[in-house]
Each structure stands twice: as structure tokens, then as C-alpha cells.
């Protein structure tokens, strides 16, 4: 893009652009998806520098507001200039030019989770199921194994008895082990041997 324009954008973002130029740039900004995306990225940089922790940096908040406003009456009559068609399909409300992000989600997810999964070797990605890579090993530690997003446990549920024992034991584990145990219990555990009827007597064994 035009460097002078971007430089003006940067100054306007900081409220350091003369008013007359602001007026002109505001008009361009309102209909130029590319400029909007860049403007949005400037905001993100600021949020990171201020360490606005806990705030999602790529929240589709702006997109949602935009969607709601589409249905709102305009505050006054206004003809919107035709959009710059080159970027017409940009999702400007996402900090990184949208289409590219959507298509490369698989790459992005794997990149991120490489940092998170133990040892750095496993590539476990939360991606839509159409991305499939060969898996190696039952423990999920394979080279690139894609799992669908975890869903609430369906058929396999623990026996209440086992749940009791797990909780009772957790009071005697070392604190780190206890954290692991209860966390696993909080998410789900799947005893081999199939479903337990929730209404069954709690003392019954699974089979």
C-alpha cells in the first residue's frame, strides 16, 4: 500500500494528524477494508504492549458489532461508496487478513500447539476435521496427529464409585499429582469397558 497513506494512518491512530487530513482519511478508512485491517492491527500492537492480559487479541468483536449495525437504521441518510473490490472479501475485523488466516488455520494451529504439547514433538491440532495427517502411536504423541475438538463425554462415563475413589485418593496425592488427577477427573475419564448406566447402583462393577 501507499507508504504515505499508511504513515498518515499511523499518525491518525495516535490522534496526531491535522484535522483536515483526518477528515479525508476517515472517509477512506470507513470503506477501505485493507486500511481497516491495518488499523485493527495497530490496536492489537498497542494491546500487546500494554499487556492487556486476558483479553482475546483476535476476538471477532468488531465483526459482530458490524453485523448488528447492518440491521440498524443508519443515523442519517448516507450513500456508501462502493468498496474497494480487491479486498472485498477481507475479513477486516480480524487482525490478519482474513481469508489467508482461514485457509491456513491448520498451519497456525499446529504451530501454536507445538509450543504447548510436551516435548515439542507432538503436533496436536484443534482444527476442523478435514485436515488429516497420519498418526503414529496410541498416546497421541505421534508426529502429526489431528484430533477433533474435545466434546463433552458421551457414552463413556466413569462409575460413581470410581469417581468417589479418585476424589478420596486425591487428598493423599502430592499437590502436583493431585492437580493432574482432579483435572483429568474434571474433564472426563473413560474406563475401558464401556458405559455405566447413571442410574445403576453405585456399587455394581462395570461388568
Amino acid at each position, binding site marked *: 500500500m501507499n507508504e504515505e497513506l499508511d504513515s498518515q494512518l499511523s499518525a491518525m491512530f495516535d490522534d496526531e494528524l491535522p484535522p483536515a487530513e483526518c477528515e479525508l482519511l476517515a472517509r477512506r478508512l470507513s470503506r477501505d477494508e485493507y486500511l481497516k485491517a491495518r488499523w485493527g492491527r495497530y490496536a492489537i500492537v498497542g494491546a500487546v504492549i500494554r499487556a492487556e492480559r486476558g483479553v482475546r487479541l483476535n476476538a471477532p468483536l468488531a465483526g459482530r458489532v458490524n453485523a448488528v449495525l447492518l440491521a440498524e437504521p443508519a443515523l442519517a441518510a448516507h450513500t456508501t461508496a462502493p468498496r474497494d473490490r480487491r479486498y472485498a472479501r477481507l475479513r477486516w475485523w480480524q487482525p490478519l487478513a482474513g481469508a489467508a488466516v482461514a485457509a491456513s488455520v491448520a498451519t497456525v494451529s499446529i504451530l501454536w500447539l507445538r509450543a504447548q504439547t510436551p516435548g515439542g514433538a507432538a503436533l496436536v491440532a484443534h482444527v476442523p476435521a478435514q485436515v488429516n495427517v497420519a498418526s503414529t502411536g496410541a498416546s*497421541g504423541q505421534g508426529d502429526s496427529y489431528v484430533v477433533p475438538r474435545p466434546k463433552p463425554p458421551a457414552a463413556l462415563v466413569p462409575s460413581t464409585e470410581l469417581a468417589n475413589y479418585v476424589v478420596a485418593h486425591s487428598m493423599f496425592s502430592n499437590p502436583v499429582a493431585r492437580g493432574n488427577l482432579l483435572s483429568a477427573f474434571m474433564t472426563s475419564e473413560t474406563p475401558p469397558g464401556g458405559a455405566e448406566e447413571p442410574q445403576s447402583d453405585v456399587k455394581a462393577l462395570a461388568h
Partner: protein
Amino acid sequence: MSRPLRTSGRLASLALAWAVTGAATAEEPAPKRSLEYSPTEWLQRMDQALTTRNYDGTFSHWQGGRVEMLRIIHRVQDGTVSERLASLDGSGREFIRTGANLTCYLPDRRTVLVEQHPAEESLVSFPTINDQTASFYDIREVGHTRLNRRDTHIIAVSPKDEYRYGYRLWVDESTAMPLKSQLVDAHGQVIEQIVFASLTLSSRIPDSAFRPEISTEGFRWLHNDAAPHLQPGAAALAWSVTSLPPGFRMTVRSAQVLPGSAGAVDHLVFTDGFASVSVFVERQPAPSGQPLVPESATVGSSSAFSTVVDGHKITAVGEVPPATVRYIAGQLKAQGAAPAGR
């Protein structure tokens, strides 16, 4: 919006602030000189922090190829421990403990388990590392690194045999909280991991933090009978083990009634100073008509094993490899009169 400026001093301190913390933070207390702590002392400091500090954090839990987010809130106030662990996605389960009351909310099963554990009010009921422990684990500091801009000591606890698991712990230098922890098997493969995404240590946490977020309308409530004074070993049978994996010894023997169960259960705890295994023995003999098959289960990376010994169902649970719980369960023996078919 102008403000008074001191020029170069401000720049210098700003640059320093950025380099050190990379972000706007409150002043942090000067870190203690921590060079002198031994790896074992780091672990002890860590256990202390986890059990005595007030904190509120969210963390990711990775196990079996899945990652879930959870929240932990922990408070010690006037000697009473309160904690709340909640699944932030998926099951929506919550575990809340206030003093002697433990409550497990299982929305996916529309069940609430309520227990009273008067004996567990004490803060320190977990295994403590002792000299013996060093015979079975190699404990050393393997690194000193910055994790999310915090100085951490990486402590590795490596088992010397296949009866137990190992750990790698990223212990925060100033708070001794484990910002990241990995459970590793005897081959060094990571099988479980917890990483904190946010963690706040605060002086005050209100009671409202320990209320569940879910609605329990229509749920089944299972309480343990208020029978806190069961005598351990008062059953007709006393249980013991003939042998244990190296380093393990019994540390606790108690009895309790678990929520939803009709009878008492003897609870034995074995530990090697780091890992522990509980064995639960039902006092009521198993009904003879019902075929009972030994059964293994896992809860995350912990192992459970049920079987029948001398006509009583026993279940062993612990953060050890499956073979270890099977071994210990298999070594259980009843002593004393064992009348048949009671």
C-alpha cells in the same frame, strides 16, 4: 494530556522495565536470593505454595492427546482450605472443597457427590519427600529458564524403576508455584502436562469464589452418611500387604463411607514419598452370586485396578503406572477371621 517528564532517567527506567517484564506490571517484590535452594527444597517450597497460598488461575491440561482448560481457585483462611476446580469447557464439572466438605458437581451425569472428610481438614496430608525418596528418584535441577517472562527453575524427578512416574516441573522463582508441570513415564515420554495460562496470587479471595456456576436442578445428590468416627481396622478383617514395590510403605489407614455407597470402606494409603496409591477395601463382602472380574481403568494418567480378595472387592488408585496398582492390589491380604458367606 501532557504530564511532567523527567527525560533520560525515565527513558532508562522504561527501557529497563520493558526488558525485564516486557509489559506494564505492578512492582514485583525483589526476588529472594534463590541460588541456594536444592532441588528437593524447590519441590518442598512448591508443595508449600500449592497448599498454603491463595491463588486463582486458569490452566491447560493435556493428556491422552486432548487439551482442556480448567480454572483453579485456592484459598487458605483461618486454617481452612477452600478450593474450586472447574472445567471451563467440555464436561462443565466442578470440584469444590471448603474445609471438610467436598462436593463434586457432575453435570454430565446430573449427579452431585457430597463428602465429609474431617480428617482431611489438615493441610498436610500429602507425601513428603524424605531421604528414602532419593533412592528411588533422581531429583535434580536441569535448567533455569524464563517461562512467559518469569524466572523458573526446571526440576526433574526421574524414577529409577518402572513402578513410578517422573516429573518435570517449572517452578517459579519468586512464588515457587509450578507454572508448568509434566508427567513423564520411565522412557521419558510426556504423558500429561499442565501449563498455567493465567495465575494470580492475591491476599483476599471472597467466599463467593467458591460457589458453583452450574445449576443443579433435577440432579441426584449422593451424600456419604455422616459417620466420621469409623474406627479404622474395626472391621472383622484387618488388611495388610505382603510386599510392596521398593520404597513404598503404608502411611495412612482410615475408614470412611463414600457418597452413595451403603457400607464402609477401609482406605489404606501407600507412598514412596512422592507417588501415592490408595487401596479401598469394602467391608461388606461381595455378593457371592455375582461374577467379579478384575478390571483396570485410568483416570487421566492415574491408574486404577479393581479385584476381589478374600471375598471383598478392593480398588487400588494411584498416580503410578498400571502395573504398580495391580501389584499392590495383588499383595493385599486379609488377616483375622474371615467367615465365609457373611
